[in-house]
């Protein structure tokens, strides 16, 4: 009996330790490194920053502390490019989140209120585009939105327009791209929240005199709020740091922090600045991230 229990404890320990250590090593610690690099000096070397901690000379760490510098952060505040990127990213992400919600909600509601047999197939069909290449789907919008693209050609051919709409390479194109790409992330939590609603509650509301619109306003909508919050967070947070959409569909006026950071990293080889930018982005997102984590914890079953 005792040996069995010992084995059991080791087994349990392993099951927890494997993923936990992996995540600490390859997710938690890396963030600390980003902070560290953001405080380093930029050098023309490989890697392009002055390392503080040397595996071969651990003691030297203390003496090197004086090399910590806030240069990178100072540089950020002085660079209007970065300031603009942050503001623009937050605005575009917020607008995209709102639009995604407005499109996804009726869609998810329609699926959740369909006959039971159809729900999962319809949901899968709605999520299926997510399984195709993100890059390709964004690229398809290039075809659609360019000045010589399909939408403009169609509108001109039909006589509705005489001049093409300049959508491509504007903030509008970026918003459209983000909304389109992130739609499945909003549909899924909304669907789960709406599908879970007890039919009896809706019937009770109708029984008590509420016409369908009132049932929606007073019962369906308030009860779906957790799903709305989850969906909005799952769109907003990653959208702020989005890179591909602004890079492919945006232009010189559409500055988003994702592409600014990317350029600083790959083109300018300025790792400390890029790291500082990442840290600032993380700080900006701390609020929404905390709400998101709190929200997820609430759905944890209590033991």
């Amino acid at each position, binding site marked *: 009996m005792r040996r069995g229990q010992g084995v059991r404890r080791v087994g349990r320990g392993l099951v927890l330790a494997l993923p936990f250590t992996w995540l600490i090593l390859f997710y938690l610690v890396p963030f600390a490194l980003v902070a560290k690099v953001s405080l380093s000096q930029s050098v023309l070397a490989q890697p392009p920053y002055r390392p503080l901690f040397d595996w071969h000379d651990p003691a030297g760490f203390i003496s090197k502390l004086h090399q910590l510098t806030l240069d990178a952060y100072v540089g950020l505040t002085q660079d209007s490019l970065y300031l603009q990127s942050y503001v623009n990213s937050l605005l575009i992400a917020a607008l995209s989140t709102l639009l995604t919600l407005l499109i996804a909600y009726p869609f998810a509601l329609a699926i959740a209120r369909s006959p039971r047999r159809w729900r999962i197939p319809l949901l899968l069909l709605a999520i299926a585009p997510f399984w195709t290449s993100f890059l390709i789907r964004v690229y398809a919008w290039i075809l659609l939105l360019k000045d010589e693209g399909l939408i403009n050609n169609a509108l001109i051919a039909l006589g509705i327009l005489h001049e093409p709409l300049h959508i491509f390479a504007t903030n509008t194109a970026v918003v459209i791209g983000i909304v389109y790409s992130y739609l499945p992330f909003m549909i899924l939590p909304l669907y789960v929240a709406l599908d879970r609603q007890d039919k009896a*509650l809706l*019937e*009770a*509301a*109708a029984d*008590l*005199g509420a016409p369908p619109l009132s049932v929606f306003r007073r019962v369906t909508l308030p009860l779906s709020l957790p799903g709305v919050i989850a969906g909005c967070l799952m769109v907003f947070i990653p959208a702020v740091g989005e890179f591909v959409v602004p890079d492919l569909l945006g232009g010189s006026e559409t500055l988003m922090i994702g592409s600014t950071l990317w350029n600083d990293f790959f083109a300018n080889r300025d790792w400390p600045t890029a790291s500082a930018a990442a840290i600032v982005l993380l700080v900006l997102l701390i609020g929404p991230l905390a709400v998101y984590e709190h929200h997820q914890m609430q759905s944890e079953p209590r033991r």
Partner: protein
Amino acid sequence: MGPAEADAGPIVRIEGLCKSFGAVRAVDDLSLAIEQGEFFALLGPSGCGKTSLLRMIAGFDTPDQGRIFIGGKDMTEVPPHRRPVNMMFQSYALFPHMTVAQNIGFGLVQQRMSKPDIAVRVGEMLRLVQLEGLERRRPDQLSGGQKQRVALARALARRPSILLLDEPMAALDKNLREETQMELAALQRRLKTTFIVVTHDQREAMVLSQRMAIMRDGRFEQIGTPADIYERPTNRYVAEFMGDINLLKGRVLGHENGTSKIATEAGPASVAASRDYAAGTEILFALRPERIRVNPARSAASNDPNVFAGRISGRSYRGETTLFEIELASGTNIRSLRQNDDQRTANDVDLGAEVSVQFSADAGIVLPL
């Protein structure tokens, strides 16, 4: 605003109602009239169609055929939010995102009642169900019994003409159930609202209702008062559904002077006149265990015309009653229920004892086979 004024007709009338779900006929050509102020019960096993019928009266499902008249008006096509009917749900269906007061006031907000008036009515309802002081609580902070009362208060808040109750006691435990049944019956008498309750518990139906309908497979087996149905069942199904009963196969021998003679598995018996059955008809004789007396074999002769010899083959003490199983001389088994109301406490009749089984002429009823 109160229960509908006494029109000439019944408050709920259904005609030829039919409803199928896929291949299953849930409701099969039902017609019924329920009078204003009645406490009416729909009783039957699960799947008999009673809940389907209730839901159609409420308006949540539309019948495939037939019509529903409420207060004299044809309401078959009317959506639920426009019927003068309110329902108390089996699961209570309390809105989790609203307080008790908001739940009860929900229907009143729909009626565009003013806030002060709503507060007054909500207070009234809470007093009615004895839950004063719980206005600000949320459903997840309430006990099962409290939730039930809130559901009831909510359904009554709009002073509907008709209140529908779907298995109102199903989620309560036994002691609470009996207490609540009495309260509910008293409440209905006070309010004079028509109550229609759906239940699978025959005791509950008898306690609550003034009239009830036994349902099976979408049809009514019998409609009547609880006493009618219990003491004068019209067929085997109803007789067996309503509590314990002995069923003896038999044949009518003849009729004379207000009694009929029948031959049963137990032996010849003399019963109240059953002229509907001609001599020679094969019948079923139904006897409730509480109408059968068991005495030690050597006790004094009794006044009952029907006396049979037997032996106790089983006995179970149940506190207020004792159930005997007797093997009669003819080989048939019969059950007798005795109230433990005097000092004899059944010690005079032990397992294996020889006994005499007796019942009066009107103790049982003749049923078709």
